[in-house]
């Protein structure tokens, strides 16, 4: 017997006698009724900021204002122009010097301020993690109330990688003090547009 078969054998021999049924997951009463204000509030709790540009032109202007000193801006969405073409990136290492990464998220979660990003949205996954700062574009109508609704929408069958991102990178490993920008992005701005 190979190790795989031995493990299956051991598991089968040790299965508890009483079989437990898969539980009914009830539909819980939603506590959040106004999704957008809740989402905005949770973004701030998570250490993110948000902006409400009128249109994409204003968003582009806002980006330039917010990150006037950035030398490398790499956008994975056609809605915003950067100065590094992500479609030309062959190796994630090429993104090591990105100051600002711009990505359009599929949807946000009002319960906790998360945004959902897939490999298709990131184009190169590393953009979401090597960039010093992130700007996330999100349609303000693309919100779900909570994680139950969120997992109905993720469709994990269709993407090799998907991430719920909730604000910037954070740690409290030194003296239990919260610090942003541990390994991933130092800041995360959501443009609701």
């Amino acid at each position, binding site marked *: 017997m190979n190790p795989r078969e031995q493990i299956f054998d051991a598991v089968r021999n040790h299965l508890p006698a009483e*079989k437990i049924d898969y*539980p009914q997951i009830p539909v819980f*009463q939603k506590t959040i009724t106004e999704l957008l204000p809740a989402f905005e509030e*949770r973004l701030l709790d998570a250490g993110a900021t948000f902006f409400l540009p009128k249109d994409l032109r204003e968003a582009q202007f806002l980006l330039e204002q917010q990150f006037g000193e950035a030398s490398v801006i790499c956008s994975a969405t056609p809605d915003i122009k950067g100065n590094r073409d992500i479609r030309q990136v062959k190796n994630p290492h090429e993104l090591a010097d990105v100051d600002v990464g711009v990505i359009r998220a599929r949807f946000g979660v009002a319960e906790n301020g998360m945004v959902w990003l897939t490999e298709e949205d990131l184009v190169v996954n590393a953009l979401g993690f090597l960039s010093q700062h992130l700007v996330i574009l999100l349609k303000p109508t693309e919100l779900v109330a909570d994680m139950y609704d969120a997992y109905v929408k993720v469709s994990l069958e269709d993407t090799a*990688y998907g*991430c719920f991102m*909730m604000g910037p*990178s*954070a740690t409290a490993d030194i003296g239990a003090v919260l610090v942003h920008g541990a*390994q991933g992005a130092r800041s995360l701005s959501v443009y609701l547009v």
Partner: protein
Amino acid sequence: MAAKRVDPAANAAAFIDQDDIHEPAHDRNLWAARMKRDAAAKAIPEWEDLRTIASLIKEHTLTHLDKYLEQFEANAIKRGAKVYWARDAAEHNQHVWNILNERKISSIIKSKSMLQEECGMTQFLETRGITVTESDLGERIQQLDNQPPSHIVMPAIHKTAADIAQIFSKAIGTDPNNTDPHYLNEAMRQDARKRFLEAGAGMTGANFAIAETGTFVVCTNEGNADIGAAVPRVHIASIGIEKILPKVEDLGVFIRLLSRSALGTLATQYTSHFSGPRKGGELHIIITDNGRSKRLGMDDFWHSLKCIRCGACMNTCPVYRRSGGLSYGATYSGPIGIILDPTFDESKYSELPYHSTLCGSCTEVCPVKIDISDQILRWRKVMAEKKFLPISRRLAFSAAGKIFERPNLFHGAETAASAALKITPHFLLYNRALNPWGRHRELPHFAKQTFREWFIQNKQQNQEDKQQP
């Protein structure tokens, strides 16, 4: 040769006695996490229902584990991952080594994985010339200080910022007197960055593995697992066989519970879902048993496999907060450690079940409703039966047992003082030479008259009158 028995009480005493800073800070910080957890839980009206559902989903999965493991494997392969099976730590480490060796990879970056910790993987790889860098800040601190993590979510929580400033100054040349967490974090960020870019492979663990899609989920606050998976070409994930959940929708329940229980935050900053290799990359999944299937067969203890490693039981444990996680001398510390560690080595960890007041707080916070406190008591029974009880303890109790058996002996002395000396309460007299009661406590004053004497003097006549019509 039997491993040396861990003495958590002595280790904890050393943790407390080192100074007036570490233990109070440790207690305060973890208690703060418990308070944040309470607030986060209170904000969800269905919190207790969620715990029940999570517990049932885990119990369902574990009682049908063979089926779900097969399903997970088939789907992961379909998605393009390469799946390996490891019966124990040695096989796990060998798989990792083979993958690295075949690709001539000499440096890896890893995120936190308790399973890899359990397997002693880092040491195994280092002796074979692989440079292993922990990317989680807390784990990195512990790695540089040559210590295992002391907490499963906050690996360096037993250290102060001043301790860390010392460690970083030696390792990466920071100012030893600058204890500002922002400064220290920034310095380590710069150092880690290089290592991420140099690494030939990124290693992660997994918080959950979804049978119906072959996906596994990794939760971090730093994003370090994602960098490790996104930058090097090779991603290796170590997954314990108990991590399986049947469906994607189950995550709605578990993600809501995990970080609220752990740190009182609504979720971790990053909840990442890996279903197959990323574009241009490789994904290797090592499904590992390492004692789990045996545990599944232990009637009294298999529920411990439901654990989602949130650390809530550690944060709330009053004994853990005063002891520091390293006192447990094992991969897992705190209440969950007490019930897991003996499954790896009963003799070495035979004292752990006694490092508890059985206050029961762990059982109440556990998001998957593991009966931790009852399992601790059941482990004591195992230890007592197997004669792992320290000899002094055994003697004290068999003497007490004899007295309790025979009321005449028990009441033989009719004065309070001698009753006290004989039996009451035996822990005051236990180990008299060292007198551990008296180091921090005055002895209670024994009454001039016991209740029994009072009763006989004042009430017994009454009682007899009543009983005889």
